[in-house]
């Protein structure tokens, strides 16, 4: 029951490294990227207008808080850290043709693991080692969580979209159970894990409030990009993604690679959770679920699964996320509006790709 649907909005997934780039190409790429974003902002603005909110005021607040205020931009850059890890995980999975939609479950379990282990570790070992161990264990737990969908896809051909989604529902509940029952801080009335003291968290950059997790996130996505584009392992994964049958015939161990892809993708999602907890939050409260996982998908698609471009789009998403929270408070628009915006971006982007493809074909004919 496997379905050969390489998750490519564009045909450019494989040729991200193609050699000469003319000015025309760059202009074309810019148009194909900014066009859909602008169109999506306009359509989403119409929806705001329909529910009686001034879209210009909304977008104004988003930019004011997310981009132009000194405190806001620092929050935006801090928010980028977990999003970059999640985007890195999605790049690996999507380029290898696997739909890991279980990011939120893996993220939360990584977060809870880190929140439970870090306060214990800092008491028995030096701080840097304690944080390193917490990252490691969060990654491993998320990897284990992805094992069932990975094995089902690799050896039984069960569609991974469904299994990873189911595992996300399970993982979200399990994370809550762990917070409420296993790792609950006995000293607080609200169910939450023990808080990691601020001085033990990841250091902040210079004199700002920006977490150094941002640097880790940037490193993660760049390493992933280089592995996917410059190494034999990355090429193997891209072949599996482009044509699984051809990959089998060329002698690649597809089941093993499938499990590896899920492990890397989920591991990065687990690290995303850990970096958010160890760098910023300090603890996990019960029922906390920021649901970053699905929101990152359009950013990765817009970037054509290219790591460098993904950094830019994650920044935009971050601005939207931080600014959206502020605009939501001021204008009374619930945060769910971001979901609508993300959805419109995806649809408009797919449409733009289609018409671009059609235009190119008719020009060649």
């Amino acid at each position, binding site marked *: 029951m496997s*379905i050969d*649907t390489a998750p490519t909005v564009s045909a450019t997934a494989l040729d991200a490294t193609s050699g000469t780039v003319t000015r025309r190409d760059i202009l074309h790429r810019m148009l194909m990227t900014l066009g859909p974003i602008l169109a999506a902002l306009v359509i989403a603005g119409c929806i705001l207008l329909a529910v009686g909110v001034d879209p210009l005021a909304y977008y104004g607040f988003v930019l004011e808080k997310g981009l132009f205020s000194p405190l806001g931009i620092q929050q935006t850059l801090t928010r980028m850290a977990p999003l970059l890890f999640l985007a890195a995980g999605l790049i690996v999975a999507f380029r290898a043709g696997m739909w890991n939609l279980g990011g939120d479950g893996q993220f939360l379990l990584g977060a809870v693991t880190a929140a439970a282990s870090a306060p214990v570790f800092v008491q028995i070992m030096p701080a840097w080692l304690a944080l390193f161990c917490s990252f490691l264990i969060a990654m491993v737990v998320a990897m284990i969580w992805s094992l069932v969908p990975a094995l089902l896809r690799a050896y*039984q051909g069960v569609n991974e979209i469904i299994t990873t989604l*189911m595992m996300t529902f399970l993982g979200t509940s399990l994370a809550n*159970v762990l917070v409420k029952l296993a790792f609950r801080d006995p000293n607080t009335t609200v169910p939450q894990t023990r808080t990691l003291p601020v001085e033990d968290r990841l250091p902040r950059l210079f004199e700002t409030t920006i977490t150094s997790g941002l640097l880790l996130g940037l490193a993660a996505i760049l390493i992933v990009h280089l592995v996917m584009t410059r190494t034999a392992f990355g090429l193997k994964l891209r072949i599996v993604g482009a044509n699984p049958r051809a990959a089998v015939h060329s002698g690649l161990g597809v089941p093993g690679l499938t499990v590896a892809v899920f492990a890397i993708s989920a591991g990065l999602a687990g690290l995303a959770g850990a970096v958010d907890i160890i760098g910023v939050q300090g603890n996990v409260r019960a029922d906390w679920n920021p649901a970053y996982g699905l929101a990152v998908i359009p950013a990765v698609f817009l970037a054509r699964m290219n790591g460098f471009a993904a950094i830019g789009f994650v920044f935009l998403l971050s601005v939207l996320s931080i600014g959206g929270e502020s605009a939501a408070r001021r204008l009374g628009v619930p945060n769910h509006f971001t*979901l609508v915006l993300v959805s419109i971006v995806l649809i408009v982007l*797919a449409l733009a790709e289609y018409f671009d493809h059609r235009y190119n074909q008719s020009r060649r004919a």
Partner: protein
Amino acid sequence: MTGLFSEVFLSALLFGAVTAAIPLLLAGLGEQISEKAGVLNIGIEGMMLAGAYLGFVGAFYSGSLWLGFLTGAAGGVSVAVVMALLCVRIGLNQIVIGIALTLGLEGLTALLHHFQFSRSYPRLPAADATVIPLLSDIPVIGPAFFKHHLIVYLAVALVFGMGYIYRRTQLGLNLQAAGDKPAALDVAGIDVVQTRTIAVLTTGALAGLGGAYLANVGAGLFIPFITNGAGFLGIVLAMLARGRPVWVLFGALLFGVCLSLTTAMQVAGINIPTDIIQMLPFLAVMIMLVLFGRRASLPAALGIPYERGAR
């Protein structure tokens, strides 16, 4: 615990199971027809949410449950129209569009709910049941299965109607061919795009109806994210049912029991955190997939847009 109490408890449990199963059944039947015709419909969760929201709005303002079902189905169809245009007509990636529709409808219905109902949280009165004479007098089983709203019996009848369409009619054969070998259907002179469009729109109507039932009869109100994965459960049901509507019914009832157990345990005051109980249905799905995943069969051309003359 007296015998009488456990009898009442058991029939309430089964009654809840049927109520919980109906949205899953409708979603599963809907997904099945799309998959048969070769369209993987990940947007079904969004279609159910549209159905739940519009179904509730329709029933709330008109006071008629039937009108609510109608607007709910229309809501599902309106999302399906987008899906049909983008994925069947011009052949965009079904998974990308499906995810986008689900996300968008999650956000949009939550947004509309916020502006419309978030201060008052209005509720609908309990739905009137159609009591089937004689059968409903059977102890335990009678009150559990034969005292539901009329639409429940219609949904079960639909299972057999679908079975008939798939096995005995030209339309059923066309749907099957559109999923297995669309080129052959095209050569036979039947429009693949049209056949698939019919399938996707039917999915929208059934999913919308399922959502409307969930909001209007199951819950009596609309809250954001009310479907909570029911559409995805429907996809799993369709995958495991191997194209047979009756298996969707059995699967839906099985998951219905799980969901009903969730509520029953909470009502009975059994001291387990709700989070653990909420995991039950999804755990059941994963176990089913581990046990039967390999035996699930899907049409050959599932997920692949049909383009005439393309290789």
